């Protein structure tokens, strides 16, 4: 099976030849090319080459057209802070006074240089993929983006104290998010990760989520013409799982802080579970730890398809050694082949 066939079978809730692996390496591409992170991420050519090499090296089942989440804040005019051993992050909030929301204008993805760079990456990867490997793009949800736009504290206050301005900001962000997803799909993305940790019960109370993040996700996702994954960036999902499924999304991320078997049982036949290796813990894994973690995730969630093995955050930290990623790759190859008869045997 090609990676594309493998992933398609899994998200159709069938068992492919083996458990698909989304090796969510972004920064490791710079390591493959021996480049500083800033040089790597500011050139689409580098990222394309990096992703191709990462797939060869670690055998994952997708090309990950993700540079850094703060690129959307950058598109709105905010500073980005480069780091030589970690992801680029958003600098000081772009919206300094909430009144600015009234005149805020969203950038056009097709003419904003940093976003054009992502579109070039997607187009380049789609060409290399030739239909055999899914290319996954990313949008930060309209509901999560303001944490960067305003800073977290002011955003919390906005949601509590200025609902009118909150909804005004959501309208701007929703239009941007849809346009940004459409541009990525037009460039060749096969699926879009909808990065929405603000909706996770780790951040927002389920009752508040139901009248905010949920409505926004439903509206936004229904306008994105491709497969989507709601990604809570390692935040918890169980208390709002039914609502997440009701958005019509195809995939949901699982948190290492929750029980994977329970998440899978509740998703089976409805949405595909993506997860749930703990990337931060991976730093100190041995090859044996990696194998044990992969085995236990597959045992918990692999049967019947509807499962893609990945880390639980959507990005493996720079500090995770190559040897651990190789051990993950090998363990999926060893324990991920369908039918998973060893799971039944061990369960008996």
């Amino acid at each position, binding site marked *: 099976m090609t990676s594309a066939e493998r992933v398609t079978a899994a998200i159709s809730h069938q068992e492919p030849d083996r458990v698909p692996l989304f090796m969510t390496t972004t920064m490791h591409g710079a390591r493959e090319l021996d480049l500083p992170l800033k040089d790597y991420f500011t050139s689409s050519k580098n990222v394309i080459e990096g992703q191709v090499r990462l797939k060869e090296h670690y055998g994952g089942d997708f090309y990950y057209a993700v540079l850094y989440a703060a690129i959307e804040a950058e598109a709105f005019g905010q500073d980005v*802070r480069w*780091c030589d*051993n*970690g*992801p680029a*992050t*958003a*600098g*000081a*909030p772009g919206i300094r006074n909430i009144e600015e929301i009234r005149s805020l204008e969203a950038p056009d993805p097709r003419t904003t240089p940093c976003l054009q760079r992502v579109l070039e990456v997607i187009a380049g990867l789609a060409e290399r993929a030739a239909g055999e490997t899914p290319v996954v793009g990313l949008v930060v949800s309209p509901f999560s983006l303001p944490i960067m736009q305003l*800073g*977290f*504290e002011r955003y*919390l206050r906005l*949601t*509590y104290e200025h609902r009118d301005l909150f909804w005004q900001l959501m309208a701007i962000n929703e239009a941007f998010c849809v346009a940004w997803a459409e541009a990525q799909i037009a460039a060749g993305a096969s699926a879009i990760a909808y990065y929405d940790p603000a909706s996770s*019960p*780790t*951040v*927002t*109370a*389920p009752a*508040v989520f139901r009248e905010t993040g949920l409505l926004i996700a439903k509206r936004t996702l229904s306008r994105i013409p491709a497969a989507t994954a709601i990604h809570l960036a*390692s935040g*918890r999902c*169980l*208390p709002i799982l039914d609502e997440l499924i009701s958005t019509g999304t195809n995939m949901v991320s699982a948190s*290492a*802080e929750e029980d994977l078997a329970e998440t899978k049982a509740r998703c089976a036949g409805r949405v595909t579970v993506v997860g749930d290796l*703990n990337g*931060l*813990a991976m*730093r*100190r894994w041995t090859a044996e730890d990696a194998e044990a973690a992969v085995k236990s995730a597959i045992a918990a969630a692999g049967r019947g398809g509807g499962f893609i093995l990945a880390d639980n955050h959507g990005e493996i*930290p*720079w*500090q995770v050694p190559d040897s651990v990623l190789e051990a993950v790759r090998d363990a999926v190859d060893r324990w991920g082949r369908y039918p998973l008869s060893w799971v039944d045997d061990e369960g008996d």
Partner: protein
Amino acid sequence: MGIAALPLADFEAALLGTDRVAAGRILEAVCALEQPLVAVEGLVAPVLERIGAGWERGEVALAQVYMSGLICEELVEEVLPASKHRRINSPRVALAVLDDYHMLGKRLVHSVLRAAGYEVLDCGRVEPEELIERVIAEQVDVVMLSVLMLPAALRVREVVLALPQHVRVAVGGAPFRLDPELYREVGADAMGRTASDALSILRSFAELAA
């Protein structure tokens, strides 16, 4: 009024419902019978710890943690100046964010400490060198650091190595919560999984010192 009779559950419900007026009435009633600082230690601090534990279990949302901290901070600001004991200023506690543009973790810890009656030296978002200078100049006993990203968490080691030996360091933030061994690796003395853990950490430091 015995500690057992303090209206913990009512106060917690008022805070979780972000009902500042109800929370204020409860605290005032307790202050009518107790020294303000006793009321703060017996009512406000334990309820914030319960709310923090609820967040840790996934039952309470961050926004509720934030709003309850804020409400308590304001209420305590109103009642404490009337107290002859004023604020707790021993040990001297400093609070800072390393590197990241992420002030919320620190904000939450600040609210909890102030609401529990502590004096706090807020250093804001700092580089390690600047923090170390201030800690020495202001004779700080306990440094509390909040981070969001892993590279910032790893930089805690620089701070620990440069501080005078007697200064204790407590850390918190997502990378520490999600990798429980990390705080020891960077040489910190304690790690908080939720903002209100700052209080139990200070208690444990005090016990160690005694």
